[in-house]
C-alpha cells in the first residue's frame, strides 16, 4: 500500500500541486513557485492603489482604463459615470498576492468626443476647404480647439507646427449629451496644402498628429474636497485630446482615423484604451443564465478583471490568480499577460 501511494505521487510530476480555486496558498509560498516570470513581491493592499505600472504603450505615464463602450458610439459615459470623487472604496478583499493585480482607479471625464463619429466634410460655401464634425458628450461647458499638425509638449499642451498656415480655432460648447459639433463654414482648412503622406500618419516620435482636437472644460462644476486644499486647482484644466490622422479615399474624400485619445485630469495624463468585453460585464445585473457576463474560466462568477496588455475583460479575480500560476496567457487571445486590472463597475455611480 505504501508503495502504491508513492507511485501515484510520482506519476504526475509535471504538474504543480495545484493550489486550485479554493485553497490559495499564503503569498510567500506563491512567490517561491518556480514561475518563469519575475518573482512577484507581495504588497500590502491599500484602497488607494499605486499608480498603474502598466506602461507598455507610453513609458513613464499612467494609463487609464476607459469607461466608455468600445464598440458603440452611444456607449458613452452616461450609464456608468463614476462619482466626482475619483477613488471609490472597493469592497474589502483578501490581499492579492501579486503586485500586478491592480484595482482600477476611476477618474471622471467631463467631456468625451465620440471617436467613431469624427469626420471631415467639404465646406459647401468654400469647396476647397474642409470642416470637422463629431458627436460629443459634455457634463460642463467648455471649448474645443482644432489643431492641424500639432505637437504635444509637456503638461499636455499642444502647439501647431505651422501656425502661419493653419492657426488653431477655438469653439465654445455647452453641456449636454449626444451633441453634434459642426465646425462653422468659413473656418475650415484647405488640406490640399499638405502632402497626403504627411496627413496620413503621425510623426516618427508620435508627438505630432495631422489633426488634434482638444476638448477643454471650464472649472469643474462641483469642487471636490481635494481641490479646496489644493492651492491652485484651476491651473489644471480638464481636457480630452483626440489625435487623428487623415487619409485620402478616392470615393469618399478625406477620412479621419483616430489614433489615440488622451485625458488630462488634475495634472495627470491618461491614455484612453478600450477594454474588450466591458460592455456586458456590469456585475450587479449579473444573472446565472446570462451568457457573456460570466468569467470565461469558471463560467460562474461575473467577470471583473481585464488582462493587460491585450485588454480582454474576460475573467473573475479568483480565476485571475489561478491563471497567473498556470499559463500566464490571455484565455481569449493567448498573448502573455503583463498585468491584471480589476474593474468594479457600479451602475449606481
Amino acid at each position: 500500500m505504501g508503495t502504491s501511494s508513492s507511485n501515484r505521487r510520482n506519476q504526475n510530476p509535471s504538474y504543480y500541486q495545484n493550489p486550485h480555486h479554493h485553497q490559495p496558498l499564503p503569498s510567500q509560498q506563491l512567490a517561491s513557485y518556480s514561475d518563469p516570470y519575475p518573482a512577484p513581491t507581495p504588497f500590502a493592499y491599500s484602497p488607494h492603489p499605486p499608480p498603474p505600472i502598466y506602461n507598455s504603450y507610453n513609458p513613464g505615464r499612467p494609463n487609464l482604463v476607459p469607461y466608455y463602450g468600445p464598440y458603440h458610439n452611444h456607449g458613452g459615459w452616461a450609464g456608468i459615470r463614476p462619482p466626482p470623487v475619483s477613488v471609490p472604496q472597493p469592497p474589502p478583499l483578501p490581499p492579492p498576492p501579486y503586485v500586478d493585480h491592480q484595482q482600477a482607479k476611476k477618474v471622471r471625464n467631463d467631456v468625451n468626443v465620440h471617436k467613431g463619429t469624427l469626420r471631415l466634410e467639404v465646406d459647401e460655401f468654400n469647396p476647397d476647404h474642409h470642416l470637422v464634425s463629431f458627436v460629443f458628450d459634455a457634463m460642463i461647458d467648455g471649448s474645443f480647439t482644432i489643431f492641424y499638425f500639432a505637437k504635444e509638449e509637456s503638461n499636455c499642451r499642444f502647439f501647431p507646427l505651422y501656425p502661419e498656415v493653419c492657426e488653431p480655432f477655438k469653439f465654445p460648447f455647452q453641456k449636454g449629451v449626444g451633441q453634434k459639433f459642426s465646425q462653422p463654414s468659413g473656418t475650415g482648412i484647405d488640406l490640399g496644402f499638405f502632402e497626403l503622406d504627411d496627413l496620413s500618419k503621425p510623426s516618427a516620435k508620435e508627438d505630432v498628429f495631422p489633426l488634434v482636437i482638444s476638448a477643454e472644460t471650464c472649472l469643474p462644476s462641483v469642487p471636490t474636497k481635494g481641490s479646496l486644499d489644493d492651492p491652485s486647482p484651476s491651473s489644471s484644466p480638464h481636457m480630452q485630446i483626440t489625435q487623428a490622422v487623415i487619409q485620402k479615399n478616392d470615393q469618399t474624400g478625406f477620412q479621419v482615423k483616430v489614433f489615440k485619445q488622451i485625458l488630462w485630469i488634475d495634472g495627470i495624463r491618461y491614455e484612453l484604451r478600450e477594454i474588450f468585453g466591458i460592455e456586458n460585464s456590469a456585475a450587479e445585473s449579473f444573472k446565472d443564465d446570462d451568457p457573456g457576463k460570466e468569467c470565461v474560466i469558471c463560467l460562474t462568477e461575473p467577470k471583473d478583471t481585464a488582462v493587460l496588455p491585450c485588454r480582454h475583460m474576460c475573467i473573475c479575480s479568483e480565476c485571475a490568480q489561478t491563471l497567473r500560476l498556470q499559463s500566464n496567457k490571455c484565455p481569449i487571445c493567448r498573448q502573455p499577460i503583463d498585468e491584471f486590472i480589476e474593474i468594479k463597475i457600479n451602475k449606481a455611480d
Partner: protein
Amino acid sequence: MVFIVRYVVRLKPKPVGDFLLCVGTAPGISASPSEENMRYFNVMILGPSQSPYEGGVFKLELFLPEEYPMAAPKVRFLTKIYHPNIDKLGRICLDILKDKWSPALQIRTVLLSIQALLSAPNPDDPLSENVAKHWKTNEAEAVETAKEWTQLYASGT
C-alpha cells in the same frame, strides 16, 4: 465543484443538484459523463457531411484532468479512423489540446474542433506518418480508404 458548474452552467433546463447525464453540446456531437467518474465522458461525434467520414458515428473518450480548465481535457478516439492527424491508438494531433489550450475553451468547443478536424485533415502536420504519406501521394485513394474504414468501423451498428 467548480468543474461541474463549468459544464452544466449553460444547460437548460437546469440540472438537479450537481448531477446531470448529458452535456449540451452541438449538432452531431454528444457527451455524457460516466456514472463512476464524473470527469470521464463518453463522446459521440457524427462524421461531417461531405467528408470521408460522413455517415459514421465515432466514439471518443474525454477526461477532464484535475487541472481543468487550466489544462486541456484528454481526448481520444475509441473508434478506428483513417485520418492523418489521428493515430492508431486514437490519439489526436490538435493544437488546442496541447500548447494552444486556453481555459476559455470548453468541452463543447473542443469537440467542435475535433469535428472540424474530420472535415479538414491536415497531412502536413501528421500524427500518423503512413496515413499522411498516403494522403499526400494519392489523396483520392486515401479518401477511399477513409470511407471504407468509416463503413467498416463507424457504421454505428
